[in-house]
């Protein structure tokens, strides 16, 4: 190949943010000048790139600072969940609202202080669910809507009093917060919306305050669809002889008109594929190279703001997997170089560049705050500048980076970009465009799945069984439509009552055709309140034909066990319309119905006091009443008992564990569910068992809508772990003492003693107990043994289980504190759900200590007990959610 200068050699990778891997690839391209590097990922930022080019004439990476944003307008940006940097954004967003909400008594100007989130989007997302105002707009109308907001914003002449539409008022509200407002936009929005967002942020003076433009974090940013198109073109004319596919699954996930299927790839003489899974692409390549998982290998990467981090292995490769470094090294002289050396050498070479960067201005976003908050000294060692001992200097820096987990001061500096002189033209060109939809057809939205993303996580059982945040569906994808669109299609809402199996939902199916392609299977139709009319949303990632034991689509037997694995949305996704297609999908209802396994069937509270949520204004009105009610209730219920309260002060070390969950902060992202599953060795049970309502999650996120299905608010989210009731209804009914109260107030579950009467679960008003109806645990597979937490019992068949407040973590902290001869410090024990919560909604601690964080939260006037009227006296209490709607808009 060297002789041919690499002619016919092609690399196809996913988006690469690893500086060292990119350097390696670039070196190869220098060595083989005729070779080409293509990048394609089904969920890419081509539109953001195009939008930036339209606005600035150059591609930029946009980051935001939500800790300074008082008024946020999200244009289809799911920044609380599925967005680069969402953890930081969600944390900043929640912290800002919490600071207001957690004042002991709300200040008079709370509504002014609290941030306000406006969302204009098409498919409902959890960001939309958390918004103070949400509008659902058809994708074809979104840019016009945004344009209307923009025009109001730039037009000085219109006096504020004459605001006619809600969007005018929205624009006014943003305009009053110059420099502390923020317009965010989703990567899947068309370029014009990106451009409009850039204009608005410029107009509002947010750039440099809440919005920052930096260089790209991708090592080599390209228009990925174009890149793929070029590769396909080359293959089709027979120019490609060797194709090395590093990661990804292009045989499955490429647009249907650029599909790298078998017929196309047959024209390539040698094809090799490096991937974690033996998947659809491996099947049609000559070589499948098993990839080392990132937890098995050395690597580096850049975060959303550019901060570089060194990826370190936790374990030697279990199955002798190879990293991308090792595969690419074959194209160099040092073909046996190890990933560790490559990463280290790369950063060793970057050291001088880093030092100069350390002096430069920080972005104000991201890593500098991480460093300040993390408690680790952010400065490089004092002797860093001394050139004499450069080797030892690097060694100590390297060690520090590994310890800290990131390389300080590598966040990309904010750069000043100016609007293109002809930007107004581009605006005018696109804005008026209003596609006309053929009659009786529907707009289609493609979205990455909230759990399994673009399909890469399809073989991950935890994620397959994780209920989707809004629909609570597991194991499948569906076509989301609005209630009236479903009616129009002749499809009914999910029927839970017909088959009567747990939470099995029978739904109607349709045949979905887009242009000349159609999805081979019947597509189940799911009615989602909040979806715009005449728009169908389908999620990517399902319909895998070769994903592994868990992820492979299973359609054969229509009866039992239930078919699962969804349908392949890529089959009707075209390269020119990857996210929205307004060219119209044709739908015909089929006679077959499909069984969907969801974990929640009722999404309204039916007037019950379960999830408290109100606007700040309402709360001010009702808070005294609520406090009074709470006091009388506590007093009355207390007097009911003949017994004295248990004195937790007098027991052992005087701990009484409790939890506070702030519904004002919870965004419903599901992270706690996975953390709990991982920490507590919770098995997955499969679709058929979920459909029978036997899923095992110890913590679940309940979702409730307010209003009717045509004009819904929410849903609002409520994480529900075990309440650890003081008067636990489960305890007295167990005939064998298998669930008992500890002296620290924990409701303990003794697995060994449990005989499995299920009476405790029947009597639990919160229904948080989970039962091992079968032997759900896999005791045989060796990797699963490595997967499990050694501190937590693995439960067998026939026993009840439930949230323990991570008792193993409590015990280890207590042991540590006893060794050190001190009480457990506040914040020392962090439950698994708490540790991953991006918005810090969950706080755990000792409620005997009035100064602990949890005690202080429980003293807030927003604190309430779920089903407190039952006198269960739960240890887990909730903080009421507060909304901050715009009074001008609410009035309307």
């Amino acid at each position: 190949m060297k002789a041919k200068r690499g002619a016919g050699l092609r690399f196809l990778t996913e988006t690469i943010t690893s500086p060292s891997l990119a350097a390696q690839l670039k070196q190869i391209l220098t060595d083989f000048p005729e070779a080409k590097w293509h990048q394609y990922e089904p969920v890419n930022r081509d539109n953001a790139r195009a939008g930036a080019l339209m606005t600035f004439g150059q591609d930029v990476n946009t980051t935001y600072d939500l800790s300074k944003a008082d008024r946020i307008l999200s244009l289809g940006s799911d920044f609380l969940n599925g967005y680069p940097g969402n953890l930081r954004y969600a944390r900043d967003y929640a912290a800002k609202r919490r600071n207001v909400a957690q004042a002991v008594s709300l200040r008079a100007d709370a509504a002014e202080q609290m941030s306000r989130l406006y969302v204009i989007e098409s498919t409902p997302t959890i960001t939309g669910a958390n918004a103070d105002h949400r509008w659902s707009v058809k994708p074809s109308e979104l840019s016009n809507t945004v344009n209307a907001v923009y025009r109001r914003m730039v037009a000085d002449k219109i006096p504020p009093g004459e605001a006619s539409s809600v969007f005018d008022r929205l624009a006014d509200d943003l305009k009053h917060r110059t420099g502390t407002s923020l317009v965010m936009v989703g990567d899947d929005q068309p370029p014009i919306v990106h451009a409009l967002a850039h204009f608005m942020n410029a107009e509002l003076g947010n750039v440099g305050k809440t919005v920052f433009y930096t260089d790209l974090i991708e090592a080599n940013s390209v228009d990925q669809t174009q890149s793929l198109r070029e590769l396909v073109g080359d293959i089709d004319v027979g120019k490609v002889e060797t194709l090395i596919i590093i990661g990804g699954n292009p045989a499955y996930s490429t647009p249907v008109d650029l599909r790298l299927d078998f017929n196309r790839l047959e024209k390539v003489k040698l094809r090799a594929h490096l991937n974690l899974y033996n998947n659809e692409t491996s099947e049609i390549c000559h070589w499948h190279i098993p990839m080392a998982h990132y937890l098995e290998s050395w690597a580096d990467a850049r975060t959303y703001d550019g901060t570089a981090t060194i990826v370190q292995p936790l374990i030697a490769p279990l199955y002798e997997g190879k990293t991308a470094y090792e595969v690419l090294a074959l194209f160099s002289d040092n073909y046996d170089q190890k990933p560790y050396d490559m990463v280290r050498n790369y950063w060793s070479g970057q050291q001088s560049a880093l030092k100069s960067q350390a002096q430069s201005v920080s972005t104000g976003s991201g890593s500098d705050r991480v460093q300040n908050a993390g408690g680790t000294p952010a400065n490089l060692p004092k002797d860093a500048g001394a050139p004499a001992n450069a080797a030892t200097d690097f060694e100590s820096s390297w060690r520090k980076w590994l310890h800290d987990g990131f390389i300080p001061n590598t966040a990309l500096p904010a750069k000043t970009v100016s609007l293109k002189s002809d930007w107004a033209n581009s605006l005018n060109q696109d804005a008026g465009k209003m596609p006309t939809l053929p009659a009786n057809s529907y707009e289609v939205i493609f979205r990455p799945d909230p759990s399994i993303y673009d399909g890469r996580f399809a073989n991950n059982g935890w994620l397959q069984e994780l209920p989707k945040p809004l629909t609570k569906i597991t194991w499948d994808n569906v076509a989301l439509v609005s209630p009236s669109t479903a009616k129009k299609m002749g499809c009914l809402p999910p029927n839970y009552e017909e088959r009567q199996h747990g939470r099995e939902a029978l739904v109607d199916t349709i045949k979905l055709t887009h242009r000349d392609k159609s999805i081979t299977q019947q597509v189940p139709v799911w009615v989602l309140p909040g979806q715009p009319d005449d728009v169908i949303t389908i999620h990517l990632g399902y319909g895998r034909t070769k994903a592994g034991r868990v992820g492979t689509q299973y359609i054969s037997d229509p009866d039992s066990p239930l078919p699962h694995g969804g349908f392949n949305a890529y089959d009707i996704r075209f390269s020119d319309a990857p996210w929205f297609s307004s060219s119209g999908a044709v739908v015909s209802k089929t006679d077959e119905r499909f069984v969907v396994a969801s974990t929640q069937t009722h999404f309204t509270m039916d007037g019950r006091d379960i999830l408290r949520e109100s606007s700040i204004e309402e709360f001010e009105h009702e808070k005294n009443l609520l406090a009074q009610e709470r006091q009388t209730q506590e007093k009355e219920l207390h007097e009911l008992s003949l017994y004295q309260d248990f004195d937790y002060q007098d027991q052992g070390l005087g701990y009484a564990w409790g939890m506070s969950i702030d519904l004002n902060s919870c965004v419903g992202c599901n992270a706690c569910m996975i953390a709990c599953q991982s920490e507590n060795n919770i098995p997955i049970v499969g679709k058929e068992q979920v459909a029978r309502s036997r899923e095992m999650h110890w913590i679940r996120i309940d979702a409730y809508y307010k209003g009717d299905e045509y004009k819904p608010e929410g849903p609002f989210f409520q994480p529900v772990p075990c309440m650890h009731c003081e008067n636990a209804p489960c305890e007295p009914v167990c005939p064998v003492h298998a669930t008992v109260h500890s002296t620290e107030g924990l409701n303990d579950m003794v697995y060994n003693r449990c005989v499995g009467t299920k009476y405790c679960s029947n009597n639990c008003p919160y229904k948080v107990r989970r039962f091992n109806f079968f032997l759900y645990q896999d005791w045989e597979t060796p990797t699963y043994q490595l997967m499990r937490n050694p501190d937590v019992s693995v439960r067998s068949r026939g026993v009840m289980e439930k949230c323990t407040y991570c008792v193993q973590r409590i015990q280890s902290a207590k042991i540590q504190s006893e060794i050190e001869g001190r009480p457990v410090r506040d914040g020392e024990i962090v439950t698994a759900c708490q540790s991953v919560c991006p918005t810090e909604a969950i706080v755990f601690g000792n409620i005997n200590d009035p100064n602990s964080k949890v005690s202080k939260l429980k003293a807030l006037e927003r604190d309430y007990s779920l089903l407190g009227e039952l006198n269960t006296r739960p240890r887990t209490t909730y903080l009421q959610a507060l909304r901050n709607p715009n009074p001008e808009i609410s009035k309307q």
Partner: protein
Amino acid sequence: MDEKRDDLHSSVHATHPVVGTELTFGSVTDKISAIVLKRKTPIGWFIGFAVSFALFQLMMLAIVKLVFVGIGEWGVNIPIGWGMDILNFVWWIGIGHAGTLISAILLLLRQKWRTSINRFAEAMTLFAVAQAGLYPIMHLGRPWLAYWLFPYPNTMGIWPQFRSPLMWDVFAVSTYATVSALFWFVGLIPDFATLRDRANSKPFRVIYGMLAMGWRGSARHWHRYETAYLLLAGLATPLVLSVHTIVSFDFAVGIIPGWHATIFPPYFVAGAIYAGFAMVLLLTIPLRKIYGLQSFITMRHMNNMAKVMLATGLIVFYGYLIEAFFGWYSGNQYERFMIWNRMHGPYGHYYWALIFCNGLTPQLLWFKKIRANLMWLWLISVVVSIGMWLERFVIVVTSLHRDFLPSSWGMYKPSQWDWAMYIGTIGFFFALLFLFIRFLPMISIFEMRTILPEAEVEE
């Protein structure tokens, strides 16, 4: 003597004597013992036994599957942790109430009409309790550890939890089963002696001889027997009330709307007697016909049992009404929803079928003509038995499936293995009954003789 006979056959009962007037000491013994010893076993017996034994095997299969694979075979889930298992347990236990009531309470109340049906009713009780007893064991996640529910001394130093109604169940049901079995066996001893004396073949003589425990019919034997029997009757009487009271506590102690109700104990006890008598009627009507026992089990019995059914049926119906009333009157939104959901929820048709079966159908028993019509009585008994099953379904399942938090609501459907187990227990029940009819005197010979006109000597 004539006075007493007149009393016994007073004008009220003139048309329905307790015992056929043509019977004598000799013919009573002959007729009853012949079923066991002399008469050719009818072909119907073999068919009936074969079918029920096959169903019994189905139950064994269901149990084996359950133990080896897990309780997930059944339809239970979270939130409906109890389904067919507990509802069938309660159903069988309810059926098992008539026997003791007839034997013990009616004995103490000196209701002579009980004599010809008590043996059979007791056997039925015992067999029904055996079925009921299977369920609490099999519904456990780990049935092989069922003995942990007993307070036995162990190295772990752990007692069962005495606050749990399931614990009380263990005592209530096991006591009830023991006392019923003893009562039944003690009552059988004199008749075992009769069979021993009349058996033609050696093995039968030996077996019945052993069971007779050396009964020779001496005055001392009779004296001790009478004392023991009366004592056992005294012991059994409170059990009639206690067992179903405690079974009702399984629910009433719970916090779930639809369970948490103070009316449950009396309402359950009445329901149990109701169900028990329905089952006795259901079984005796065909038996009496097949074995020609019309002179032993007369229309008087039928009439009386129908009246007991009517009385208890009214109590049960009152229970349904008052449950609904309290659901509304409590003003508690969960209770109100529970009643609304029972009537109009996805299981609403179960509720209305229940009202039809248990509330309306027994009203027919007000009519004498219907009480005298065996076909009607039998049909009503079938309807009531179904109604009692529906009642337990409504209580157990519809209360659980929608409780406090709408997020955790779910549905329940019994699996094929639930049905296999249920049908299997019915098979087991009938298999035991067939064996009983074939090998034991289904009517108490010696007690029948005491109510014959011949027995009424002047002292």
